[in-house]
């Protein structure tokens, strides 16, 4: 019997054409579009007189540019033009569009799953590196550039070299206080920010199986932060339960047929990966990044590392540059680092389960006087749900700002930015120099750790909360 991995099953069922010695042409089941990486692609179609091959498999929303307060009129004229261009393009080419006024608008990687557009066994692309999020459902989901966006619009296919496979197995149960965010930060800290380049990761093991869909999305979301082409988790009962009854999920007989298909997807016993990494869940802790990429990470109980302790010269230089940018000195305890801002949001950690967990930390407490904190739901649906549950009041009573849905302060493209020198505890995915605003300093943590830091004014261990 030919034993196959989850990835291989999806790949093989999507190859349209694979000429010898050339990359494959693979079929795309869902193409998600947002305002930043699509205008040049639509312009390309216009210039060459091409149309969108499958507008019914293409869905557009606005997220990167939208303000999270006063969003009905975008003051930044260039941002406004970009948002308007997407609406125009969606209209002209017949693509379904969820604009600012829609109650289905939100971060593209939050709305795909919540609307039931994301499904197991499919190929999903978007001009956005965090498309890896959708792999949580057992899909092959990958970020592409704008030229490739144009290619998918025109042909519904992607030219792709078959990536290698990598299993990341997290054995054992997660200790109390260790979240999905800590799992992925621990993995990246262990394999490095280029540890999975050229590979598709499949996350396996007990610690992964017991995660909620939201937790699995957090893990898969940051696969790109380890350099992976995509990340994925085999579908199971948790996946099926999440998808049943969602707006665009298959219904009736179609649902039955789909579920039967999805149950055949998990990696066969004995199938081989090109590479396997095993991590013990019991060794994972709540993590805080100290540097300028997500691999520069230590447990909250740890200290800022001394670059001198690193082996290679390039790593030492990188650590020195990072500490200079972050204005940190070696050996200080992580919990002594005071923060100015807290951001709970982004496609990594702004789903309903994340907001519930963070609200649980801040309930009845007050944000430190020295801290400005905000919560930005990942989608308008998440915002509505959170308000029904009263989570908005928990946050605002504690002194957090409660905003409208969008990418917000994850990437410094809209009015939500750090000022130069400001230090932020953030539930987002990238701590690159200037990522949250020029000169801003980002520490990546789980939403629970961000919430606790907002109250304490510095990093604290949520296991002691």
């Amino acid at each position, binding site marked *: 019997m030919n034993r196959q991995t989850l990835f291989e099953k999806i790949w093989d069922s999507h190859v349209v054409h694979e000429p010898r010695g050339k990359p494959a042409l693979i079929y795309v089941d869902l193409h998600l579009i947002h305002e930043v990486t699509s205008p*040049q692609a639509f312009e390309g179609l216009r210039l060459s007189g091409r149309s969108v091959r499958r507008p019914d*498999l293409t869905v557009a929303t606005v997220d990167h540019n939208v303000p999270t307060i006063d969003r009905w009129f975008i003051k930044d004229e260039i941002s406004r033009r970009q948002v308007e261009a997407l609406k125009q393009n969606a209209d002209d080419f017949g693509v379904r569009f969820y604009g600012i006024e829609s109650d289905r608008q939100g971060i593209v990687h939050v709305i795909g799953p919540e609307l039931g557009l994301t499904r197991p066994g499919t190929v999903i692309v978007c001009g956005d590196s965090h498309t890896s999020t959708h792999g949580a459902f057992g899909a092959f989901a990958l970020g592409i550039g704008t030229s490739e966006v144009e290619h998918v619009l025109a042909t*519904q296919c992607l030219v792709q070299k078959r990536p290698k496979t990598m299993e990341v197995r997290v054995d054992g149960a997660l200790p109390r206080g260790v979240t999905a965010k800590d799992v992925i930060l621990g993995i990246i800290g262990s394999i490095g920010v*280029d540890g999975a*380049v050229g590979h598709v990761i499949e996350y396996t093991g007990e610690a992964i199986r017991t995660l909620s869909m939201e937790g699995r999305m957090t893990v898969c979301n940051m696969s790109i932060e380890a350099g992976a082409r995509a990340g994925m988790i085999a579908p199971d009962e948790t996946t099926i339960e999440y998808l049943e009854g969602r707006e665009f999920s298959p219904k009736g007989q179609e649902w039955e047929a789909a579920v039967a298909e999805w149950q055949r997807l998990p990696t066969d016993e004995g199938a081989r990966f090109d590479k396997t990494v095993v991590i013990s869940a019991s060794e994972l802790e709540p993590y805080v990044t100290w540097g300028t990429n997500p691999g520069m990470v230590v447990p909250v109980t740890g200290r800022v590392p001394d670059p001198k302790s690193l082996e290679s010269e390039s790593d030492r230089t990188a650590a020195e540059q990072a500490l200079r940018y972050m204005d940190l000195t070696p050996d200080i305890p992580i919990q002594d680092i005071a923060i100015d801002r807290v951001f709970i949001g982004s496609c990594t950690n702004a789903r309903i389960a994340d907001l519930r967990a963070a609200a649980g930390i801040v309930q009845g407490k007050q944000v430190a006087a020295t801290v400005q904190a905000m919560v930005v739901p990942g989608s308008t649906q998440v915002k509505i749900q959170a308000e029904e549950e009263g989570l908005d009041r928990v946050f605002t009573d504690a002194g957090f700002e409660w905003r409208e849905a969008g990418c917000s302060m994850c990437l410094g*493209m809209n009015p939500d930015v750090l000022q*130069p020198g400001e230090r932020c505890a953030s539930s987002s995915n*990238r701590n690159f120099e200037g990522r949250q605003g020029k000169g801003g300093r980002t520490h990546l943590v789980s939403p629970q750790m961000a919430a606790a830091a907002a109250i304490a004014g510095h990093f604290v261990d949520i296991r002691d909360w």
Partner: protein
Amino acid sequence: MEPFTRLSGIVIPLPRVNVDTDQIIPAQFMKRIERTGYGQFLFNSWRYLPDGSPNPDFVLNRAEYEGASILVSGRNFGSGSSREHAVWALHDYGIRCVITPKFADIFYNNCIQNGVLPVALPEDRVQELIEKAERKPGYRLTVNLENQTIYDSEGFEDAFEIEPFIRERLLRGLDDIAMTLQEEDEIAAFEATRPSWLEPAKS
């Protein structure tokens, strides 16, 4: 796309590892809907001081490197965001070839789409080139895609690997979409086999 065959040019050294696309072009410059004009924003945060004046210490601001077309940097170059704007900024600035020990996957594909040649060389060879370009500003390299070699006038010479298909594409400046549209029959045949549950259900 303009074909890439052979390039001889000044080398810019960027002795850093993990240069991410947020550094190549920060997000605030991605609001434009055009494909051109991003060169002025290339490496913005390193290139300009907080007051907006050029940072005299940054390599792009040194007169000896003016007109450079080759960039050499540390491993995992182009990591992070999928933004093709990063390659548009490099290309618009004049860079036609990037040399590093290891490329991030999406950035690599974006280079190919824009006729920028990505060359992967071993770590020690890249270090050697960085040192040469730092020691002697204005240092030049020649990259020949036809025979996959890279050399200078002082005896440095190396061969590099590239997928034959990608080499062919760059040499001829081919457009992926036009090639794929020739497979129309196969795409349509594949489409006919897709199960109906793959269509989005009506809400």
